[in-house]
């Protein structure tokens, strides 16, 4: 007997490699992906009882190839039945595929994982499709697992995945790495998708968590895989460091009842020291040798927070300097919000409020609860309790997250009670 968890880990690591080998041999990403998924399911049910085969990768490739042939044959039969369709059938994409192919004939090419990842994060796909396809084809998760992680029905997720595959087919993308000139832009999309997956997992505070696949851990696992393939890239290292340094705070960020604990009030003894150490080492190395990028700066900011033994020991001048750089190279309204908090911590609340004033003109931000929440916080710092309370109440009404709303209503109530 082999432990189920051990089998699962191995399968998910092999999933993109097996898919890569199959697509390389036969083309037709969509069909291969279905075949690999079936092979993974077969292995997940057989290996724990029968033991892991000597060449697990070859086993999966053989089984997936067989499924591919079966699928191809049944498609052929269907086509023969459909006279009109048969008359229109073009050259078959799977010509030459006649029987099961032994796994050994496929060279082990670890770069395939990266090629699969770039394909799943193709710019022709919507963000939700990129996320879903990445989790299935690279992460080796089942559609049911992905659906439950995102709290949507399985049919909805299945449709998103099949649509993503259709888009890849329609875009006529070959199974090759993006050309060197496009690589940085394409890598940015990949990193963004991994970051979305991480955030989806990290921000989940309640619900049937035990049933949910740990998306934050999955994002970290996938980013680690990318770092092994692109060890020189500073932004990949920056993203992994950012994830580790953020995830390290997870045990302290919610109370047992699911309510949120702000950074300044978290019990820092609960933070994961190991993850912080790894994150700090990663970001220090990246900053020393690679060109600066937004993930690295955000990781550096997270590192400064995580390295403070107490909230009042936080090196705010350093955080402010980092936000100033971030605003320059990758500024957006959310960065300005955080920049304002840092400015307030260094130069007093008015400095932060001045920075926020610029955001009122942005229609999207003016309606966003975060702007009102940050302003309320700075007004509270400034001692304007009535305005702060009104700001928290407004922010609470705009919030679409239950725990955030609860936190904001709580801040407002506290000001009313002390008044």
């Amino acid at each position, binding site marked *: 007997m082999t432990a189920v968890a051990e089998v699962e880990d191995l399968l998910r690591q092999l999933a993109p490699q097996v898919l890569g080998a199959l697509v390389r041999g036969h083309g037709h990403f969509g069909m291969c992906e279905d075949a690999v998924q079936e092979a993974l399911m077969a292995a997940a049910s057989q290996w724990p009882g029968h033991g892991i085969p000597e060449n697990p990768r070859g086993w999966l490739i053989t089984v997936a190839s067989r499924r591919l042939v079966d699928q191809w044959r049944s498609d052929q039969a269907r086509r023969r039945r459909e006279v009109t369709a048969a008359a229109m059938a073009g050259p078959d994409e799977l010509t030459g595929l006649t029987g099961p192919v032994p796994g050994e004939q496929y060279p082990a090419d670890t770069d395939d994982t990266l090629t699969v990842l770039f394909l799943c994060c193709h710019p022709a796909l919507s963000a939700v499709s990129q996320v879903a396809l990445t989790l299935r084809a690279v992460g080796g998760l089942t559609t049911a697992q992905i659906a439950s992680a995102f709290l949507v029905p399985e049919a909805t997720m299945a*449709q998103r995945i099949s649509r993503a595959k259709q888009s890849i087919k329609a875009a006529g993308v070959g199974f090759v790495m993006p050309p060197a000139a496009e690589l940085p832009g394409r890598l940015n999309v990949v990193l963004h998708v991994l970051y979305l997956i991480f955030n989806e997992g990290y*921000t989940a505070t309640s619900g049937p968590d035990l049933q949910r696949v740990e998306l934050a851990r999955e994002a970290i696992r996938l980013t680690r895989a990318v770092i092994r393939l692109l060890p020189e890239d500073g932004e990949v290292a920056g993203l992994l460091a950012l994830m580790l340094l953020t995830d390290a705070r997870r045990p302290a960020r919610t109370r047992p009842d699911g309510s949120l604990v702000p950074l300044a009030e978290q019990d820092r003894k609960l933070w994961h020291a190991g993850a912080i150490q790894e994150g700090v080492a990663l970001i220090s190395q990246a900053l020393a040798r690679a060109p600066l990028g937004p993930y690295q700066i955000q990781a550096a900011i997270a590192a400064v927070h995580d390295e403070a033994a107490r909230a009042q020991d936080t090196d705010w001048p350093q955080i402010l300097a980092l936000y100033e750089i971030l605003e320059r190279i990758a500024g957006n309204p959310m960065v300005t919000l955080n920049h304002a908090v840092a400015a307030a911590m260094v130069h007093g609340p008015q400095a932060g409020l001045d920075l926020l004033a610029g955001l009122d003109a942005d229609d999207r931000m003016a309606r966003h609860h975060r702007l009102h929440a940050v302003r309320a916080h700075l007004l509270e710092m400034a001692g304007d309790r009535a305005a702060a309370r009104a700001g928290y109440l407004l922010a609470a009404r705009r919030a*679409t997250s239950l725990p955030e709303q609860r*936190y904001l209503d709580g801040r407002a109530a506290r000001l009313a009670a002390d008044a």
Partner: protein
Amino acid sequence: MLLIYNNPATYQAWSEKERDALFGEVDEIMKELRESGEFVGGEGLADASNARTVRVRDGVPATTDGPFAEAKEQLAGYLTVECESTERAVQIAARWPDARYFAMEVRQVMHTAGTEM
């Protein structure tokens, strides 16, 4: 969430052909939403005359027949969609036939994910 409001009396005054045409439109939108992976769920509601409204005052429950709000237009159903943007949700609502005769209300659904501040 897209809340569908209509007036059952107006609806009943239409011919069967007119009603079929509207159902056809709805079927078409539903097909598109299922195929795009945007459809998450939804239900049509039975007529508001079947509704029971429950109020508990001083611990004593009182049930009355009929809807909470007495109005010609009543909530007739809802669908939950997950879209890229609010604009897209509004666009879907605008195509729903009830938007032409009555109204569709687009509301965000509260979620349980949260970021500490």
